[in-house]
């Protein structure tokens, strides 16, 4: 597979480490959310046959975490974004 890194251009997937569903960005606040919310965050996942947003880490590269939108049926990569940009757009801060 080839991942089109938003900064570095097309890179072989072997340079990356896969984590999983990009919903991991939406971590609840531990001071306000309870065990149920964290349980849902950590363990419950959609398993779509089609477009899937997922986190990849460019470990053998610039150490960027990326959000890759990949079609799980064809492996077509529809979009690649810096996870930091996605997280900030979703309202994450400090």
């Amino acid at each position, binding site marked *: *597979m*080839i991942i089109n890194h938003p900064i570095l251009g097309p890179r072989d*997937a072997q340079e990356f*480490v896969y*984590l999983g569903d990009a919903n*991991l*960005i939406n*971590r*609840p*606040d*531990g*001071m306000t*959310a*309870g*065990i149920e919310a*964290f*349980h849902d965050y*950590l363990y419950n996942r959609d398993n779509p046959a089609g477009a899937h947003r997922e*986190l990849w*880490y460019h*470990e053998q590269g610039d*150490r*960027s*975490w990326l959000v890759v939108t990949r079609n799980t049926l*064809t*492996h*077509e*990569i529809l979009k690649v974004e*810096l*996870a*930091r940009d996605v*997280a*900030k757009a979703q309202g*994450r*801060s*400090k």
Partner: protein
Amino acid sequence: MKQSNRISGGQIDRSTSLHFTFDGRSYLGHAGDTLASALLANGVRLMGRSFKYHRPRGPLSAGSEEPNALVHLRTGARQEPNTRATVAELFDGLHATSQNAWPSLRFDSMAINDRLNSFFTAGFYYKTFMWPAAFWEKIYEPIIRRAAGLGALSKEEDPDEYDKGFLHCDILVIGAGPAGLMAALTAGRAGARVILADEDFRMGGRLNAETYEVGGMAGADWASAAVAELMSMPHVRLMLRTTIVGAFDHGIYSAVERVSDHLAVPAAGKPRQTLWRIYSKRAILAGGATERPIAFENNDRPGIMLAGAVRAYANRWGVAAGDRVAIFTNNDDGLRTARDLQAKGVDVAAVIDSRQGGDLLAGIRHLQGAQVIDSSGRLGLRSVTVRLASGATETISCSALGVSGGWNPNVNITSHHRSRPEWRSDIAAFVPGAGGPAGLTAAGAASGALSTHGALATGQAQALAALADLGKAATAGELPRAEDAPIAISPLWYVHEGKGRAWIDQQNDVTVKDVKLAHQENFTAVEHLKRYTTLGMATDQGKTGNVLGIAIMAELTGQSIPATGTTIYRPPYTPVAMGALAGRSRGREFKPFRLTPSHKWAAEQGAVFVEVGNWLRTQWVPKAGETTWRESVDREVLATRRSVGICDVTTLGKIDIQGTDAGAFLDKVYANTFSTLAVGKCRYGLMLREDGIVFDDGTTARMGPHEYVMTTTTANAVTVFRHLEYCRQVLWPDLDVQIISTTEAWAQFSVAGPNARRLLQKIVDQDISDAAFPYMGAGNITIGGLRGRLFRISFSGELAYEIAVPTRYGDAMIRKLMAAGAEFDAIVYGTEALGVMRIEKGHVAGGELNGQSTALNMGLGKMVSKKKDSIGMVLSQREGMNRDDGYRLVGVKPVDPKGSISAGSHFMEIGAPVELASDGGWLTSKVFSPHLGCDIALGYLKAGDQKIGRKMRAVNFLTKTDTIVEIVSPHFFDPEGERLRG
């Protein structure tokens, strides 16, 4: 050594004679021959024994689809099993032997299987060797493995090198027949970067095996001219002897180039094979088609071949498949073979044509409406029995029979992303279906365009389409003139008469009868058919047999072939040597060591090393007269506790963390608090996973208001850093914090023992008295002017420091430390002594940080601050992880000091039955403590904190130990920590 079947013509160099042997007999061939063509030229038809029934077999084909003619090539360490004689390029001195036959190819004792064939039908193994289960491993499997099987490995180390490489192109063209050459010419002329790869050692594909004209010249000559033009283009790379074995995502293809397989020994510095990864923007599959046989009784005798192979041997290699050849066909292609042989002066006994009507061949006995119903000749074909249109039978003597049941496009690679081939009834074959690898199109025979003109036209058209996709301007040049004859096929899959076996998949010995049995037992779906009969599961992946088997099943079920469907293909297209997949990752290169800065010094001292992840660390350093490892380790522990010991701890992960939010960041990633840590101090940190399980631990020092240095365990150095990047970028993207791994930047040594300070003060420029550098102090120092770092931390329970210098000074540093320590009898201790001392102190490490344990389990529950949000804080509060009767870290020692305990033992109450229900936990780490003079251990015991002082059994079935132990505090040594602060 007369080449009795050599005839005129062909693309061989008759001026070069090559000597070779097969099963100990010497023969002559020519440059340009394959092993199969040379053996056939010498009148040798018998080349192997079949897999299951040990039937005598000769080559069926003249290419990589070959199911039968599998041989050992070469001798000694270079012996290679299961090579196909039909693609093995002849070289002088080639040594080939037959396989799967004993004592000899002509008299194979296992041919008894052939007589017992009624027992060995499809499903035989499933039905026969089912019980008793214990018999499988000890009795059935060894017998089956000995009897059935292919070649044997040399069992010696492969002396050759294999390489890997990466290539990039605009358009990859797979196959260099007329379609591939035309595609490459079209793309190359338009200036595209082209790679043209072909598995053969001569480009041209079927043009080399046919007598057709292309553009007014012999097809083979047109191919040569095309290759010459392509070679003149610097942006075109031609790759001979290169098989595209798999299609992967995003235009990536893997290819095996057999760089030196055609040589006795690779040239100096050259690999035997290279595995290429080709990155392409577009790819054109021009892989041609494979002929399929027609099944009839005894259709597997040596001398019975595909008609196109008979033609290839005659036209390309100047070899008559036999002195008298018959043809059995259901389409016009078989007639070509007869005409070509006739033109070469080979005696054509008859053409048995299953079709009725149409023009009769001139000057050849052409039997229309006839079928071959049987054959004779134990070790080679002697005659065929023919059912004539009249209903009468006739026996026709012949030494070779060419069979053509039609051609199957080589769709294999188009299926590598699960696309299913589609049936085309006009050519009675499967063609590439929709949904194949993105960017890949098929041209020529691979796409179902079976004529030469069709190949040229589709090759050009697909190249133009690819160029247009890539935005490259190109014009369609005039196509060279070529034949465009239809195949005129009238499908015939198998001859319906005869009680004997008619072979479909010759490599796995699957017969028409097996397919009928599968049908009878309701294994009618193609995937069931495949697994029940093993159809297509051999090393040739059923290239000649699959479609035949599927068509016969379709006939039996009364379904159409498209309704029956087809199995699909997976990589590799042809078998790939393990060596090619390994490349240079062999032996030590498979997993290179990382060496610590003191490695050279330690090796000079005769240190014993141990692999820790990728690192090689000193395990202990034996002294003269020490005969067991325990003597060395005990001495290292006692010497450290008595005076001072030094240990290289560079392997621990080191991460620099800087920024105005560095403290806040550490509060989020550690369970305990770091933002309140004073500058110049260290603190032990516990890191959890989000699920509340302990992830890692280590000490982190605050070097400045916005600057921390974190240490991690050796094992988790990489994963902790990845996790920190995740927290920093994904979870809290606005934190002002930067991190960088400095594991390789600093050589770090632990200096431990009552004399540690005295030793270090000799070399450190600053005052490091207890007042100036108290317990858990940290700071930048200099060592004779060299910048360094000092941390007063201890893993051993002694007064201890870790001192760090830039890595390039690591070797000098260990020598300086040892010189300065000479007056204190300083020693170096290894990982074993380190383990003894940390267990004596009750510190957790690998055995306890097992990915299943919580802070509470480790007795560190109070470290998880609930006043702040940190990774794992919330889920560590789950009820099940906070039970009073959960596991707690305990110390363990045998009641009898001479008693032996072993790690992995399980705790049982004394008197309780030794069974799972009595299991109270397990021992995680065990050492002999020279300080206490007995074995000691750590362990996780249910409600362990309430069981201090209790006596229990420690039972271990693996080491067969069962010892009465006392549960104690995990702090065996200096529980008050007075020595640390000394």
